């Protein structure tokens, strides 16, 4: 990339610089030069020079391998989506929060409203609110959804084809998608008109949250089934979030996160092909929710390496040619695990740095955490501030005017290469152990996650890792930030009552028959090649007014029940 003359000059300059460190800092000042490394353990130099990127190939945004961005223009043409995950209590409460967020600036591309909603754990796992398993948890951590009515409560004010609907659901993505398709049908819309995102990350969520999940074999089948259905019926649907966020929250390093996600991508792409899909039908609709932690430059390098690694795997390993299959889209969720409940306003500074890293890394979409999220659900004022961080960056700083503004930086380019290399090692290790889904089954991934999260805590306790306000720069009197609270028993009772009315107003014979057909379909779906037979049965069940829990129960009953990962 540089002429020999330039590199020679650099070498000369380096000698002078090294000499100064030796003579002045080490000898005269007796400075014990520390050895720093990145969060992932990549050793860092004190300074980087052209020598470090000597072999780098020049690259432009919009061209393979897309390190600098997917398209020729970045934020100049399309600002990032400001999407905030939200949801709690009743559908009505969640709908009001959605409205508030949209009013304050939450949006998809252009002026499209984005509804990215969180559900409670009974909904994640597929226990209807009247199930004894759901006691005490209905409406906590998200909204409860068990019927078409519940979806209507959330979405009745929106023109569905013009709304980006993204459900943050762990294990019940398929029953929910079936219900959403049927709900849209009742409003006169065909599936192909819809636009949004499924999580389709059963495997990840089972590993990281350790909730009652379908078996690993069933998880894989359900993910492939969703991919096949949506590619063939809802062209604009983003079928899979190859989520790295949840691993980051268990303190895996940035390179581990990237390596794990790419190993999962390989398993799913292979599965999609086995299920009879053409690559260009389904590969362009993968995307990732990435964890954005506090190691500023390594996180930027990770975002750039993420795109490059994807492009190379899809081109070189699978031989895909359509640029859309090589260009990777990234949504970021700023790290919840970086927040402290102590001196919570400090979290605004953390989020600002994280959002800045995302913008410098060229992401498509972002969820910014609110400063009070280590204390409880965010207040309106706190979520508004989270949105404002984005708007300040977008409108006041001039930062988005130039694409990949750090491209060519000796340090960042070198770090991007190193992150790619290290993440490649993680991926190779997982592959040598049989691949991602195999490493769920054999426990290797869960062990890695547990090890990482215990290690993080030990580093905090020993003081080796600084968390401002937690183990350093603490204050005696913590300021009390009001915690957002719900009166859960009342919410739960109201939701159960609604569900009872729903069950009383349907043809329960039809319900039973359609659930039998779901079970038959799941039993018949014995190999990946048969993907495509379950979703039609679920859609029929949703038309028969089956609940989310009933559909999920039929699925797990015919696929080995529920498991915990440890």
């Amino acid at each position, binding site marked *: 990339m540089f002429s020999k003359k330039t590199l020679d000059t650099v070498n000369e300059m380096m000698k002078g610089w090294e000499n100064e460190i030796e003579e002045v800092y080490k000898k005269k000042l007796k400075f014990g030069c520390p050895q720093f490394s990145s969060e992932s353990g990549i050793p860092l130099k004190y300074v980087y020079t052209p020598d470090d990127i000597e072999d780098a190939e020049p690259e432009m945004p919009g061209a393979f391998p897309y390190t600098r961005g997917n398209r020729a223009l970045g934020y100049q043409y399309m600002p990032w989506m400001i999407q905030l995950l939200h949801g709690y209590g009743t559908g009505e409460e969640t709908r009001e929060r959605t409205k508030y967020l949209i009013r304050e600036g939450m949006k998809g591309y252009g002026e499209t409203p984005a509804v990215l909603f969180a559900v409670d*754990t009974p909904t994640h796992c597929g*226990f209807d609110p009247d199930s004894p398993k759901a006691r*005490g948890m209905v409406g906590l951590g998200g909204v409860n959804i068990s019927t078409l009515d519940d979806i209507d409560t959330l979405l009745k004010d929106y023109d569905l084809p013009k709304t980006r609907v993204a459900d943050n659901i762990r294990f019940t993505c398929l029953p929910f998608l079936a219900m959403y398709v049927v709900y849209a049908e009742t409003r006169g819309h065909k599936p192909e008109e819809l636009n949004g995102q499924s999580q389709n990350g059963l495997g990840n969520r089972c590993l990281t949250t350790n909730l*009652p999940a379908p078996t690993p074999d069933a998880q894989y089948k359900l993910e492939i089934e969703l991919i096949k259905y949506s590619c063939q019926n809802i062209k604009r649907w983003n079928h899979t979030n190859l989520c790295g966020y949840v691993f980051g929250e268990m303190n895996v390093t940035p390179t581990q996160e990237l390596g794990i996600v790419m190993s999962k991508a390989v398993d799913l792409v292979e599965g999609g092909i086995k299920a009879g899909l053409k690559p260009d039908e389904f590969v362009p609709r993968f995307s990732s929710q990435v964890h954005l932690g506090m190691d500023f430059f390594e996180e930027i390098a990770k975002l750039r390496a993420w795109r490059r690694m994807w492009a190379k795997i899809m081109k070189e390993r699978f031989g895909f040619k359509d640029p859309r299959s090589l260009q990777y889209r990234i949504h970021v969720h700023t790290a919840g695990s970086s927040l402290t409940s102590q001196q919570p306003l400090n979290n605004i500074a953390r989020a600002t740095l994280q959002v800045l890293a995302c913008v410098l890394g060229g992401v498509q979409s972002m969820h910014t955490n609110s400063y009070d999220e280590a204390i409880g659900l965010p207040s309106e004022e706190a979520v508004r501030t989270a949105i404002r961080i984005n708007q300040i960056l977008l409108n006041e700083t001039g930062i988005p005017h130039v694409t990949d503004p750090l491209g060519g930086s000796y340090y960042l380019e070198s770090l991007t290469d190193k992150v790619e290399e290290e993440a490649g090692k993680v991926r190779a290790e997982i592959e040598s152990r049989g691949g991602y889904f195999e490493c769920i089954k054999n426990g290797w991934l869960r062990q890695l996650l547990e090890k990482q999260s215990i290690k993080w*805590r*030990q580093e905090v*306790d020993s003081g080796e890792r600084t968390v401002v306000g937690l183990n350093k720069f603490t204050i005696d009197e913590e300021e009390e930030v009001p915690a957002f609270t719900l009166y*859960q028993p009342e919410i739960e009772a109201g939701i159960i009552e609604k569900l009872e009315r729903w069950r009383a107003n349907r043809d329960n014979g039809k319900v039973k028959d359609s659930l039998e057909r779901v079970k038959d379909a799941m039993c018949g779906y014995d190999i990946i090649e048969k993907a495509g037979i379950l979703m039609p049965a679920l859609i029929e069940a949703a038309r028969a007014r089956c609940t989310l829990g009933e559909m999920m129960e039929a699925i797990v009953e015919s696929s080995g029940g529920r498991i915990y990962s440890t």
Partner: protein
Amino acid sequence: MNNNQRKGKTKALMARFSLDGHDRGLLSVMSSFKDAGIEVVYTYFSDPHELAKVAQEEDTDVIGVTSSMGQHFYVASTLLEALNERGINVPIIMGGVIPTRDVSQLMDMGIKKVFGPGSAPGDAVDFISELPKA
């Protein structure tokens, strides 16, 4: 390790409500307990009666429960009730995301100690080591 007043190893039943997946804190606490020589029994429960049954069968010295989604009052009240029904009097400690303003109410209900966000695993080890053995 402050274990002078004890005869055997202290046994802690550590539990997580099965629909609250936040287990990072719990993992660290359990690891510190083991390092401090405390025997750990780990279980999930969807019904507090299951947990009370395990506490009785395992004859534990303390029960540690985690709650990070706002279900702490539900868990505390139903668990205390279930233990009461079996006539078990085992100290309960709670951890997780529990707002400071709820702590005194939990203690009034009968929870021995609450370790909210920012507590170190060592705090719980010290607390347990000083409990009189049942």
